């Protein structure tokens, strides 16, 4: 879990160095991440964790915070 969190944090900070992803929990609803960022994230997550995130999973609840994304990735890893 910690490893997933750390890797994901690095991806996010690379995408938006100006955002504090440790505390931000309105990444989608606060318009911090837009649809372009989401697609880039899906590609990066796919490469780093070897999981496939589907279009149906691209909902605000899964991407509003670092924790929500970690949860999604962990769930996908368990499923696989």
């Amino acid at each position: 879990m910690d490893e997933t969190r750390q890797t994901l944090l690095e991806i996010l900070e690379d995408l938006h160095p100006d955002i504090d992803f440790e505390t931000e929990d309105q990444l989608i609803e606060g318009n911090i991440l837009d649809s372009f960022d989401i697609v880039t994230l899906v590609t990066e997550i796919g490469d780093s964790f070897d999981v496939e995130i589907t279009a149906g999973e691209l909902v605000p609840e899964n991407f509003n915070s670092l924790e929500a994304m970690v949860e999604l990735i962990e769930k996908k890893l368990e499923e696989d």
Partner: protein
Amino acid sequence: MLFTSYEFLFFLAVLVILYYHTPPEKQWIMLLAASLGFYASFGPVYLCYIGTTILTVWFCGIQLEKNLVHQKVVLEEQKGAGSREEKKNYKLRQKAIRSRMQALCIVFNLGILAVVKYANFFIANVNGALSLFGQSEGLSFVSIAMPLGISFYTLQAIGYLVDVGRGTVQAEKNLFKFALFVSFFPQVIQGPISRFGDLSKTLYEGHPYDPQTVAFGLERILWGFFKKLVIADRLMPLVTGIISDAGAYQGAYAAVAMLVYTVELYADFTGGIDISIGVAEALGVQVQENFLRPYFSTSLKEYWRRWHISMCSWFRDYVFYPVSTSKGMQSFAKFLRKRFGPNLGKRLPVYVSSCVVWFATGIWHGARWNFIVWGWLHFAILMISEECEPLYERFHARFGLIDRKGYHFFMMARTFLLVCVLNLFDCYVNVADTLSVLASIFAVHNWGLLLDGSFEWFGLGLSDFVVAFLGVGLMLFVSIQQEKEWVRDQVARWPFAARACVWSGLFLIVLIFGAYGIGYDSAQFIYNRF
């Protein structure tokens, strides 16, 4: 039966009275009857089109869910037995079955839309291509009436189907309830394009009479009427007159049409949506907001987060995400990264997907090259902005501009002007005319017409401009207020006498200053034709 017709007001008044005298558990049946009756008023034959979409999507939704339930049961039974790989393969096989069912139903319904909306556009292009090769005889055009709202209800039904396939909503088992979701009369003609998960929360439940809810709904309807009748319909003759002859009205005329059309479009479309949301609200049904004061946007990207929100989010969720996260696109991204480095590998697949989305958005608006060019111009501007983002950031930081009110206003004005220019493609029937008119703003120097009194105003006099100007001023004031809080909520806290003054005043304004004229026949809403 347009929203602004006397027939509709009578229909609504009778419906609201009957609705709140109906047992709550049967109110949805009354809404269905009203919706089908409303839709049939445009031509009973149109019910065949919407009926086909309802039946096919409902049936497919049920089958998709059956498959999902079956898959769950099988996997539960196999718990502890079978390898992980076997289960994964089984899930993949079931997913492929669902995808095929879903694709078939979507293609069928998009096919109906394609035939009624795009057949002649296709034929015209084929004939154009044939004539290039010296073929003088082309295909004959077909005569098919386009059912009102087909572009809206088709997207809404497809959205439902995809959501069921994704497992994010449960399929509606009751055909008649599903029919109500697709045909719900306040939104069937020009949106918003609702999601089943949102609309179904309040669509089927009973709503006991609540004077506050009904009053809020009626207030919203009145505000919509104000925008449509006092502003949009008053300005309409000027825009219609200027764009009727692209060759004759250029230069200053084009600039005036461009600005006035952008105001008219806003008042017309948001006014129509205010009426839609207000009608639904008066019946206790919550429909999602479609606008967030889009002309206050500081960039085109922000504008598309605030304009026609339900359509934009539909294209994002059901076209952009599926295309950009598809296996093909992900492989393309990997190939690019390997071959050209991570930067291009990240951006190009997003841009390709975006290009597809803007093509779809453009052609959804109408079967004309104008709309396709309009879509791709949006794509080009948004991509250039995206690429220039680091440059802007450096520029803003260097001069400390971003927090300055003046600069914020400049960005708003710049975005508004950009939207005005892009809207010109909506006005004219072909790209050549649009480009010639646009170029004429800079090339034809007839601005003196505005000063010497010889500008043709197409029947609009000083009193019309005073009314329109004051109307736009009020609309702007309300929009500024709404950046903080809904004006309606603010007014609701006022004493009764003050509230009565506000709403009866607005009612009188609509009655006196609405653009009716002799032999009034309400003008069609601009978005009805999409």
